[in-house]
Each structure stands twice: as structure tokens, then as C-alpha cells.
């Protein structure tokens, strides 16, 4: 029987519980006897913790108090580098103003909250280092010798002599601000600790993207082997990268309080704390020097890319890597030099946020290409057409385009979708009228590397599996988490397609490290492409096991498959098959030289935006937004379109409104009233078109999709603003009304 599940808009697996209100998120779990945990934070961007005082006003004897001295294992959050403590010890250094110092728990949240306000920290303050430029200039040194957390160099040819001889050399500096993920569900984590026969047994459950990251963190914090740590991912109210690394911190805190109190402990951040304390998108500064010949062909790129990593290393090395690998954009360029640095500052560590460094560097190059076109008197579209990557071209790392990315075709479709040329003509006429509203249209062309960078997947060697259950249904065994992106549904579709079953015969096993293997973190646009393919292998293995065991004869129908699983269970007891990551033949990467195939493949896109700017208020309205992308085979068109539309909304927010205002190293606008994300009234209906290409690496030809839509909106919008307003220094996001006013005044005075 032929069943086609891939390519169908299967309804979201966990959707029913979500629309009924019965889906149980971490804070919905009823936990009798549970204490509520609170975090006392440093409140000083840089200094030394001298002592802790407990003021009167609460019954301190009823309150569980945990300090660094209570930590059984290592006081560092497991990561790329062990430099971030779970709690600052007395006598220890304070490196940012939201650093956890002390933990409190009580059965009554209000008592714990009151107690939190009655803890006084004695801190010797030191002058902080607060931004990228100060860090690079070594105004003060807070990390290593030069404040550099990580440095990456990519070189192809030698651009320097090219600049001397080129017809056009254009330079630019571009900046992007921090961005808050703003998942609607603030962080919640529940910890329990039991004294088992072999020692401490730690269980944490909650809202988290990467169960095995938390697993590693608990092993190190408690100094216990993995079999005594259990991590359960509950229903999650959004993440976008924001629940990639910080949940390890909260899980550790909850478990430490649980150890000390002997009771389960829940830590639920409220919005203010979540916004102030947890990770953000890295602020960036990119300098680009570019050389072109007289016809506009790109000859050389010299890019200096810098990220503000915050106080600790966390994920900055890998965010930097992805940013650096996307910095040259989708252009063919013979000579390229990229210097990428993540610097330390005394601000809360930045972390993962959809796009992971790529939106920052792509914003710079895509805005820069428009600037270059105008500088050379060319149409920005034509300049791109002339220079986009084609089959056989090499990227900055030397990666060869084995297939044609079809970028001109994507541009044609996006321009048709928004009616680019017609808008441009109409606006040119209307913008000359005496009307304070000016309109413009712009586009961006970009890519997003799918899966981990370079050798990441090979190192991770992820495992996922399927289980034939005695009731004749199939369970998917993977540690990948559902955060709204649709992983539950897509995984079930992939397994169902491979087994030739209807999708309702397949569902997800609970994401619990006790039962599911390490399929790697739920990040990097890797779940569908990488884990999906492992599942394809695992499902094939299940089918083969049934056939070879004599339980199933091909061809079969779903009922025969069901019967076969029942029979196999009776005979074998359990029926699980696993797959493991297989490297793509012919692909090679060298981490030391940054040469080779950075990603197995890329998703490609062109986004076009139409904007209106009101010169009375400098407010920008996005009137139309069209996206066209090639993401390989689309497993579930409705879910995929939802991913694109949601990512675009975040990209529009980042481009125009979302600004994290820091004061003395602390987020000052950590309320939804003052951190402005778009409402339903602020966005157009976002157009989505997929051009389905092939990919030999993903299940059924699928590539990654999750992060791509974050990369394109900001440059498309600012390019459209340039079209509306003329030659302005539109070099920064968010391009708020205040900044537009500033740039207009600057242009007037120039």
C-alpha cells in the first residue's frame, strides 16, 4: 500500500491538548509538598562578593537557603568552557549584575519573595566593561589578555592587493542590538533529589530545549554518573534558543534547593526576572570593506565581525562560528578575509536565539550590498544578480557549490510575489508628493547552514530510535523537544512515511533521558534534517527486523504491520531499533583552518518587504512581506509556513522595534510594556512560498527551516527604508523611530 505522509499538512500531534487548555506545561504540574525557589542576584556588574547578611522580617528557620558552599560537585555550568559558576561564592568575583549568588525556598512563594528582598550582599564594586568597543580597545581587561572569548579567522586568497587595484572600494560599519527571545512561557524548572542505594539521584523536569545539556550539567554539579540523573522535558511554551543553555542553570538551582530541603522544588521565573537574567541574542558590530570591478563584480571582502558575548563563554564560540560562516553572504568572491571575535563584557551572557550569529552577519552583508549598489550607481537587485553564488562557485571556506542554489530564481519569485518593480515605480511617483508618508521596497538574499557547523554532527554522533509497541503503534524515541516548531508531527510523519503507515499509528515517546537516546540538542535547524534522517534509518531497521524475523511480509497494509508488532512483542519482549548519525560522504571540514564544507547543505531564500514611513512620527509600517525559500522537501507545508511566518515576525521585531536597553549592565526595560514585540495589529499577513529543491541528506529530501526566516527580514526592511527615504545611514537595528529621526537630522546637517 502506498501511503504518502511526507508533504501532507498533518495536524499538529499535540495540538488538541493545546487548544483544549489541557496541555500540561511545567507550571501546571501539581506537586504536593513542593517548595518554591527564588534566586538572589548580584545586582552589581563587576565586583567581589564580601559577605551575605540576612535581615529580619521572615521566619528564616522555615526557609531553605543554598549558597555555593552547598554544592556537592563542581560549581561550574557544563559548557564549552567551565567558567560560569552556578552561584558566586563569598570571596568570589562578580562578573555581571544578574549573577545568582544565593537560593531560597519556601512553600509559600510570597514568603520566599519577601525573603529574597531581605538578603543584603556586601560587594566591593569594580568598574565594569560594558560594550564591544570598550572590550576590543581593552579599556579594562576582564577576560584573558584581550577580553576575547573566541577568535576565528577565515581566509580565501588574499584580498589586500585587490583593494589597491579595484575600480570601487566600499566600506561600511553595521551594528545590531541584543534581542530577547520572549517565549511566552517564562522559564520553569522542577528539581527532586533522592538518596538511592548508590548515592544521590537527581531528577529535573521543566521547560528546556536540550535534555542532554541539562543532563551533563547535573552530572558535573552533583559529581554523579549519568545513570543517576534524569531529565524530563515537559510541554514547552516556546524557546527560540532561549531555553538552550540557561535551563541548565535553573535546573541546577532547583536541584540544589531540593537536595538541601529534601523536598521537590520548583523555580518559576516571572517575566521581569526572565527578561533581565536569561540570555539574549548577541549584540554585534561588523566592519566590511569590499572591492568591485568597474562592472560591479565582487572581487574582495574584508570582514571584521565582533559579538558581545557577555560575562561568560557559554555558547559564544559556536554563535561566533555560525556568524563568521555566514558573513560573506550568498556571493561569489575570489578573495575573502574574515576576522571574527566574541568579546567578554560585564553583562549577562548572551546565548542562542534563532539564527545563532547568522542574522547579525547577514544583516551587515545584505545591507552593505545595497549600499555598494547605490554607491556604484547600480540597481541593488542587479548587483545581486551579478554576484550570487552559482553551481561550481566556492564559498569563503572553500566549500564548493555542488548544486546550483537557484538564487536568481528565488529573487524572481519574491519580486513577483510583492510586485517589486511596480511598487518601485509607483513609490517613486508618490514619494515626490506633499505627503508625509514615504514608501519603499527592498529585498534580501541569504542562506542558512543546516545542522551543526563543520564537524559538530560527527562529534555529537546523535542516536534516535523507534519502538514498536505491543498495541501495534510505533513510538518515536528522540531527545529532541517540541517547542511549537512541529517536531512531534514532523518526526511522526517521517517515521510513518518510512514504514508506510498512516501517521496516527505513530506518536512521540515522552522526552525523558531515562527512555530516549541522545538525539542531540533541539537547535541549529537540525531536527528535521539530521534527526529525521536518523529516524528514517531507525524505522527502516524496525521494518527489516519484522521482515527478517518472519513477522511481516512485504508488501503489507497497516493492519498487517500492527499484527506483526503484536506478534514480535509476544516473542521478543521489546522491539526497539536505533539509528545513528552518518557522515555525508565526500564532505570534509577542518576546525583548525576553517576550510572545507561548513555545512552539509544550506537553505536559501529571498525576502522582499514593502514599508511606509510616516515623517510626522518616523514610525514604520510593514505593508507587505513576501518570502520565497528553497528548503528541500517540505515535510508539512502548514507547519513549515507557520515557522516561516513566526520567524519573520521576530525578524521584523528585531529590525524595527525590539531594543534591549541596558543601564549599568542590567536590562532596564525588562517588562512587556517597554520591550516592544509586534502585536497582531503591527504585522501584515506574511506571504510564504516554497520552491522545493532536493537534498540528498535529509529525510525525503528535507533541509532545515527553523532559523532561516530570522535572517532575512532586518536587511530587507532597512533596504526598503533606504528606498523610501533616500541616502541615510541605515546601518543599525532596531531602526526605531528615534534612530530614523537621528539619521534624517544627520543627513540634513551633512
Amino acid at each position: 500500500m502506498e501511503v504518502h505522509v511526507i508533504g501532507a499538512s498533518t495536524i499538529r500531534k499535540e495540538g488538541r491538548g493545546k487548544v483544549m487548555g489541557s496541555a500540561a506545561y511545567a507550571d501546571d504540574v501539581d506537586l504536593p509538598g513542593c517548595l518554591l525557589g527564588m534566586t538572589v542576584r548580584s545586582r552589581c556588574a563587576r565586583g567581589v562578593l564580601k559577605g551575605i547578611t540576612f535581615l529580619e522580617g521572615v521566619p528564616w528557620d522555615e526557609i531553605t537557603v543554598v549558597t555555593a558552599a552547598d554544592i556537592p560537585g563542581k560549581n561550574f555550568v557544563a559548557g564549552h568552557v567551565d567558567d560560569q559558576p552556578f552561584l558566586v561564592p563569598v570571596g568570589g568575583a562578580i562578573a555581571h549584575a544578574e549573577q545568582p549568588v544565593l537560593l531560597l525556598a519556601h512553600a509559600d512563594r510570597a514568603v520566599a519573595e519577601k525573603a529574597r528582598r531581605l538578603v543584603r550582599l556586601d560587594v566591593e564594586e569594580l568598574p565594569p566593561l560594558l560594550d564591544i568597543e570598550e572590550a576590543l580597545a581593552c579599556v579594562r581587561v576582564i577576560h584573558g589578555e584581550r577580553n576575547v572569548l573566541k577568535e576565528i579567522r577565515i581566509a580565501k586568497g588574499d584580498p589586500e592587493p585587490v583593494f589597491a587595484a579595484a575600480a570601487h572600494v566600499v566600506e561600511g560599519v553595521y551594528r545590531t542590538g541584543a534581542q530577547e527571545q520572549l517565549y511566552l512561557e517564562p522559564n520553569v524548572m522542577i528539581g527532586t533529589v533522592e538518596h538511592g542505594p548508590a548515592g544521590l539521584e537527581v531528577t529535573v523536569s521543566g521547560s528546556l530545549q536540550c535534555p542532554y545539556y541539562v543532563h551533563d550539567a547535573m552530572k558535573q554539579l552533583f559529581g554523579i554518573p549519568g545513570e543517576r540523573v534524569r531529565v524530563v522535558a515537559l510541554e514547552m511554551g516556546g524557546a527560540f534558543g532561549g531555553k538552550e543553555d540557561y535551563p541548565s542553570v535553573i535546573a541546577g538551582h532547583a536541584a540544589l534547593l531540593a537536595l538541601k530541603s529534601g523536598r521537590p522544588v520548583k523555580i518559576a521565573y516571572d517575566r521581569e526576572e526572565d527578561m533581565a537574567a536569561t540570555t539574549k541574542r548577541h549584540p554585534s558590530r561588523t566592519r566590511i570593506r569590499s572591492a568591485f570591478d568597474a562592472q560591479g563584480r565582487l572581487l574582495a571582502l574584508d570582514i571584521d565581525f565582533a559579538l558581545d558575548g557577555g560575562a561568560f563563554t557559554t555558547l559564544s564560540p559556536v554563535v561566533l562560528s555560525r556568524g563568521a560562516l555566514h558573513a560573506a553572504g550568498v556571493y561569489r568572491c575570489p578573495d575573502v578575509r574574515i576576522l571574527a571575535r566574541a568579546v567578554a563584557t560585564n553583562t549577562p551572557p548572551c546565548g542562542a536565539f534563532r539564527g545563532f550569529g547568522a542574522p547579525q552577519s547577514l544583516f551587515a552583508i545584505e545591507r552593505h550590498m545595497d549600499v555598494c549598489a547605490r554607491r556604484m550607481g547600480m540597481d541593488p537587485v542587479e548587483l545581486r544578480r551579478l554576484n550570487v553564488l552559482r553551481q561550481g562557485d566556492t564559498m569563503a571556506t572553500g566549500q564548493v557549490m555542488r548544486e546550483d542554489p537557484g538564487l536568481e530564481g528565488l529573487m524572481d519569485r519574491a519580486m513577483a510575489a510583492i510586485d517589486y518593480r511596480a511598487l518601485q515605480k509607483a513609490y517613486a511617483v508618490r514619494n515626490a508628493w506633499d505627503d508625509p508618508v514615504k514608501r519603499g521596497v527592498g529585498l534580501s538574499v541569504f542562506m542558512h547552514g543546516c545542522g551543526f557547523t563543520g564537524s559538530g554532527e560527527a562529534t555529537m554522533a546523535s542516536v534516535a530510535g523507534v519502538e514498536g509497541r505491543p498495541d501495534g503503534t510505533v513510538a518515536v524515541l528522540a531527545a529532541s523537544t517540541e517547542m511549537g516548531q512541529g517536531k512531534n508531527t514532523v518526526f511522526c510523519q517521517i517515521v510513518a512515511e518510512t514504514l508506510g503507515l498512516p501517521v496516527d499509528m505513530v506518536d512521540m515517546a515522552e522526552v525523558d533521558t531515562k527512555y530516549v537516546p541522545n538525539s542531540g540538542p533541539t537547535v541549529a535547524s537540525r531536527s528535521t534534517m539530521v534527526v529525521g534522517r536518523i529516524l528514517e534509518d531507525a524505522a527502516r531497521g524496525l521494518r527489516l527486523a519484522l521482515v527478517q524475523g518472519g513477522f511481516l511480509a512485504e508488501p503489507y497494509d497497516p493492519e498487517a504491520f500492527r499484527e506483526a508488532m503484536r506478534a514480535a512483542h509476544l516473542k521478543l519482549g521489546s522491539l526497539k531499533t536505533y539509528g545513528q548519525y552518518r557522515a555525508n560522504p565526500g564532505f570534509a571540514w577542518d576546525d583548525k583552518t576553517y576550510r572545507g564544507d561548513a555545512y552539509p547543505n544550506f537553505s536559501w531564500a529571498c525576502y522582499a518587504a514593502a514599508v511606509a514611513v510616516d515623517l510626522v512620527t518616523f514610525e514604520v509600517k510593514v505593508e507587505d512581506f513576501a518570502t520565497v525559500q528553497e528548503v528541500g522537501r517540505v515535510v508539512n507545508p502548514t507547519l513549515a509556513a507557520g515557522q516561516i511566518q513566526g520567524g519573520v515576525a521576530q525578524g521584523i521585531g528585531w529590525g524595527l522595534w525590539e531594543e534591549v536597553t541596558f543601564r549599568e549592565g542590567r536590562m532596564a526595560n525588562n517588562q512587556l510594556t517597554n520591550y516592544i514585540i509586534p502585536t497582531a495589529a503591527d504585522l501584515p499577513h506574511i506571504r510564504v512560498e516554497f520552491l522545493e529543491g532536493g537534498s540528498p541528506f535529509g529525510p525525503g529530501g528535507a533541509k532545515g527551516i527553523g532559523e532561516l526566516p530570522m535572517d532575512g527580514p532586518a536587511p530587507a526592511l532597512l533596504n526598503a527604508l533606504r528606498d523610501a527615504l533616500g541616502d541615510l545611514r541605515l546601518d543599525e537595528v532596531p531602526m526605531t523611530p528615534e534612530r530614523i529621526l537621528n539619521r534624517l537630522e544627520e543627513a540634513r546637517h551633512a
Partner: protein
Amino acid sequence: MRAFLPDYAIQAPGTLDEALRMLAAEPGAWTPIAGGTDLMVLFNAGRLPGRRLLDLSRIYELRGIEDDPSRLSLGSLITYTELLEQRAVHQFFPNLVKSARATGALAIQNRGTLGGNIVNASPAADTPPSLLAYGAEVQLVSARGSRWVAYDAFHQGYKKMDLAPDELVARIRLPKPQGLGFHFYRKVGTRQAQAISKVCLAAYARIQDRVVTELRVGLGSVAPVPLRARRAEAAVVGRALDALPIEEARRAVLEDISPIDDIRASAHYRQVVTGNVLAQMLKELGAARTA
């Protein structure tokens, strides 16, 4: 939720007399609460200073609408949604309709009250500029009696009002514009809904024989209080529609306002945009149909 519940108390008197007696007995001890859309935000954040709350929501005397030929009188407990349901408000006070629609979003409009918007005394509130433009008066009641004050004299400084600790705002009264009128309202927030204004301007002008005979401009978010742009008004009143002194008024309004840099906007942005919105208003006024 950061408030420590045992620290708080709330009582709900059933009549105005009872409420006023409670206020008179312990002036300053009570924080009146109506829709809670401002106070409960502070409460959630653990920053509500008043620990004893006086719930006004059951006091029928603070409700009701009196619509007579020359004026509209609104009970202070009227919500934004209820305002939007009043035909007379749409007919005579279109700026108030726009103010109500611009306040928060639906769930806030369903709970927030006009009286609350006044006594919360936020310079960024959305209805005060319209109330100023329409020459509103507010009735203050206490166990000592009642008095009417002009709304443009009610706000005296940041969160300082002509309101004694034993008084409540009972009603808001608006004279119905007579003759040929011009109405203008514009709120500038960063987003289209759920925004706190960075600049807000409401205007009402009366026109006779193509001359502006009366103009009131109310401004929000550009001073410690919602205020009238009296210098800008003076520059315009008496001038013909086809010769409105837009640039003069723009200069004058900068003397009226005293904006600050805060988390939502810079003082400079507020100055420029106030001038621009005023100019836009005057352009529209100049183009107003008078036949």
C-alpha cells in the same frame, strides 16, 4: 507575583456614603481601586505602596451617564468599552472615542475606567489629552461635600492633583461642542496596540466664518502632567483657516512642553514629534470643510 498577600487588605463599600465615611475616618490610609489596570500591575510587581485598598466597583452612584442638550456627564467608573458604546460620545466627542480605542487593548478597555485614568495621573495616559481638548470638568466628592474643578487645573505636578485624601472623583462633565467644530487625536506609541504613548495630542477647534475662534490642545507624555498647549493655542486663535501660523505654533509648543529622556523615547524625539503632530493637526484644520 511579587506582592506579599498578607500585607494587603481590600474592602468594598456598597454605597458612596459608606466609602466617603471610610475615607473621612482615615484620610490617606486608603487607595481607591476601580478597574485595577494600573494598580494591579504595581501589585503584581510588588511595588504597590498602598496596602489598604478601597474597591469602588460596587458603588452605583459613581456610574451612569447624564446626557443633556448642553453637556454629557459620565460617572467616573465608566470603562473605555462603555464609553465606546455611547452614541453621544461618538457624536460629540470623537477624540474620546479614539482615546478609548488607543488605550491598552480590549481586555484593558473592558476594565479600565475614565476616573482611574484621571487619578492614576500618568502623564502618558491616553484620555487626558482629549479631556483637556474638550474642556472637561471633574466632580470631586467627600464626606465634606462636593465641588467641580476644571480638568485643566486638576493636575498640579507629577502625580500631584487637586484631590484631597478624603475625596473621590465622582463624575466627568464635558460641554457639548456647539457650532462648527474640528476634532483631532493622535497617539504616537511604538506599536499599534498595547503601547504607552511617547507623544499624544488631542485638539478641538471651533470655527466661525473660516476663523479659529476657539482652540484647545491637550498633550500627553511631554511633561510631568497631561497639559494644555496654551502658547500654541494662543498663536492660532483668531487666525483664518487659510493663514494658520503653523511654524509659529510649532515654536510656541516647544515652550509649552518639558519632555524628558526615558526608557520609551528621548526628549528630543518628543519635541520634534510634538511639533510635527501639531503641524499636521493645523494642516488638517486649515483644510477643514466649513460649508
